[in-house]
């Protein structure tokens, strides 16, 4: 990893953290409603995965603000979407859980646990069919690996040797239930072992995640078939803003926070890339400015027009509704 990329990853992580903190604040203030799933604590995982899987399609879950921004979607359009405004990336239709932008090869934003996995399988089939070789990455949580959609997808992706990276973000909790209470093992890669190569990485270490995702992408591109990569992470907040997270002890959370990915990356910047504290501060300030601007933009953005209600249900000229 060169210095520029390391800086970029760090910057996106800080941007992600500050973005999420601002989202939290504006949720409390009533500017953001619905379900808001924060990625605080997992920024290293989210950012490094996006940076490593530079080309190719990404499918993910409802905890996707940081990924969307790191994928290159304008933070202003993401924040405006959280605010439900017309300038949002989904023009206020989707909200926090449904960010889509095919121009950045970002396919959501799915809020049915595990539901996006078969979609990613289909997309990988299509891309392979069309001779596009970048591959597809699907991100899901540990909770999704106990559902039928996941197992069907392991079966189908490996039967067809699809260029698909299954990226599991294992934060140890299926919503509010410790994963080991509802699954027979702590590490979910075991479920994928009979079907494909499995790998594990420390999800709190952005550099390690970057390397692992890169390696996995090379494998899937080389006709190796699908790969399962499991990243062990911690989320600091509850499952969503409506979850106080009482099922975790203070001690457990403290252990979590001691692994903070941003502090770790900062250390890497200092020690490996010899960035000064001032240089790091500059990056932070730049990120803070972007977040402040995003909030300002979202606040000022207009509400959708009421005519929007009935647009894009169908394609223009397709649903030739008989009048």
């Amino acid at each position: 990893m060169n210095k520029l990329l390391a800086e970029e990853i760090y910057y996106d992580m800080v941007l992600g953290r500050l973005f999420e903190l601002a989202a939290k604040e504006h949720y409390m203030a009533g500017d953001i409603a619905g379900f808001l799933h924060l990625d605080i604590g997992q920024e290293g995982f989210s950012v490094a995965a996006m940076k490593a899987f530079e080309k190719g399609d990404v499918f993910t879950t409802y905890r996707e603000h940081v990924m969307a921004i790191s994928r290159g979607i304008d933070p202003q359009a993401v924040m405006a979407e959280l605010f439900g405004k017309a300038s949002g990336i989904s023009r206020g239709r989707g909200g926090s859980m449904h960010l889509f932008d095919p121009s950045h090869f970002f396919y959501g934003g799915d809020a049915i646990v595990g539901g996006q996995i078969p979609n990613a399988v289909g997309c990988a089939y299509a891309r392979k069919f069309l001779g596009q070789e970048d591959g597809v990455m699907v991100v899901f949580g540990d909770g999704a690996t106990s559902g039928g959609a996941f197992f069907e997808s392991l079966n189908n992706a490996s039967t067809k040797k699809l260029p698909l990276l299954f990226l599991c973000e294992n934060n140890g909790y299926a919503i509010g239930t410790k994963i080991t209470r509802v699954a027979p093992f702590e590490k979910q890669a075991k479920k994928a072992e009979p079907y494909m190569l499995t790998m594990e990485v420390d999800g709190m270490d952005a550099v390690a995640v970057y390397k692992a995702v890169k390696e996995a992408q090379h494998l899937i591109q080389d006709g190796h078939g699908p790969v399962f990569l499991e990243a062990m992470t911690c989320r600091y907040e509850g499952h969503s803003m409506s979850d106080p997270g009482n099922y975790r002890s203070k001690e457990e959370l403290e252990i979590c926070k001691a692994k903070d990915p941003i502090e770790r990356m900062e250390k890497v910047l200092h020690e490996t890339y010899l960035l000064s504290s001032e240089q790091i501060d500059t990056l932070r300030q730049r990120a803070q400015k972007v977040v402040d601007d995003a909030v300002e933009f979202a606040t000022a953005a207009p509400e959708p027009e009421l005519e929007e209600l009935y647009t894009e249900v169908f394609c223009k000229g397709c649903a030739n509704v008989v009048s």
Partner: protein
Amino acid sequence: MLYREALNKAIDEAMAVDETVVVLGEDVGLYGGSYRVTEGLIARYGEKRLIDTPIAELSIVGNAVGMAMGGLRPVAEIMTANFALLAFDQIINHMAKYRYMSAGKITLPMVVRFPQGVSRQLAAQHSESYEQMLSAVPGLIVFAAGDVNYAYHALKYAILSDDPIVFIEHELLYNKKGEVDLNAEFDPFKARIVKEGKDVTIVSYLKMVDDVMAAVPEIEKQLGKSCEVIDLCSLNPIDFKTLESSLKKTGSIVVVEEDHKMGSYGAQIISWAAEEMFYSLDAAPLRISGADVPIPYNRRLELASIPTPDSITEQIVSWAGNNGI
């Protein structure tokens, strides 16, 4: 041409004009489709485009959604309506919603097709109808093919359309004979007037259209009146224009459907007539539906659970008497 041959021709021609059309489902490839709809296509287009899938319906539709996102035009076949229930998450939460949720950034040119309805003693888990549920989902277009011509034209249209379309067939229609008219202009959203008449409008779809047509001579004989029979064809959106002009002419409406009566699709048509056409009606609307029971295996009970030409005749004649028709 047979109904299944018309469907085959539609898929074949769509595959020939657009190389991104793929077919996926259980037994659609080497086997040729459990109702022989995809017969011969694997020889012509290869297994890259005729994709045999495991018996996992969630993934058949879920993968089709992803294929459509990734640049293909998938045609997903589900063996029978009851199995489609396993794919309802993908049909309702994904196929129907991605376009709207993404503000049009995602387009899903795809078709999910399956047969439904009572065949012959297949019992409760292979005999049901789900047009009522699927027509109630915003974002889906629902076609129901009641005859050979519509089967061909509407399926070809559906495959080449950019919208997500549910294409419903009927278990008992695959060997139905009919002509495909290649010259006339075709609108898949338009209801089909199967028979013109001036006194009673009978609205139906899928196989019940045939049962209504079988009943009509006797009904007309007993009543001394003429019936207009309409095949809805597109269940969502509905061609209310055709219904309206028929209803204005006859002043009455009967809906005949195979499905259970509770919460049925036909109730929507009756509701429309009551709300929008009340002052054109000379008689109370009538809905003839299946019984509110799981479909039984025994043939006698099975036939008693759905409308038949005899029961349709009996109910319409009795209704006409009560309503002074």
